[in-house]
């Protein structure tokens, strides 16, 4: 089991109803973790072009999680 801190942004935060969430998980990848989150937070759903970061570095959806990671879930960005 890995100890992961999850952070949601923008519409993900509004849909989850929380900004941060401390979680014990068997998920291996960021994608598995996100799917787990949609089970815990029913308002949350997969969005086109969502991005993910681990410990303030952009990551991929197959990236492996490590104990103690902070995982940031970004809905599709819309800067400018």
């Amino acid at each position: 089991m890995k100890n992961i801190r999850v952070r949601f942004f923008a519409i993900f935060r509004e849909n989850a109803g929380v900004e941060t969430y401390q979680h014990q998980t068997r998920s291996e990848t960021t994608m598995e973790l996100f799917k787990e989150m949609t089970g815990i937070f029913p308002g949350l759903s997969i969005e086109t072009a969502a991005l993910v970061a681990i410990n303030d570095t952009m990551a991929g959806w197959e990236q492996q999680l490590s104990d103690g990671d902070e995982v940031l879930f970004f809905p599709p960005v819309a800067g400018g």
Partner: protein
Amino acid sequence: MIFTITDTKIDRDGLRASLLNPASGACVMFEGWIRNHNDGQEVLRLEYEVYRPLASSEGKRILREAMGNFDIQDAGCIHREGLLELSETAVMAAAVAVHRDEAFNACKYIIDEVKHRLPIWKKEHYVNGDAHWVNCQRCANHAGTSKALPGAAADG
């Protein structure tokens, strides 16, 4: 090379002054303004949420890429966060070069990447009282080539 996130008015003259130098012959500047309509809705104001640590590091990376990919002498970008009113400048990007073509291409590259890659989100507040997070449909195609969620629908 200046990349800044700010919650106050963008200092346009300051960014230009930081790029002005006697070896450059061309300066191209882009400004994104808050406009009063989007997808048929009347917009009242916009709210920008920025995740500063990553927006800042990724923004600087984009400027370095522009310096590497184009024959320019300097580049800069400033992005607002918080609540913005109509006609305010939400983002400014600029590049300077000996010749104008490279400055145009670099400036366009910077603003395209900033819009696609920076952890920034905008919520539109409409005249009718609704509010809505903008999900930039076009991002789907672009991000699809790198780190976007697989299986997600692309721009129709």
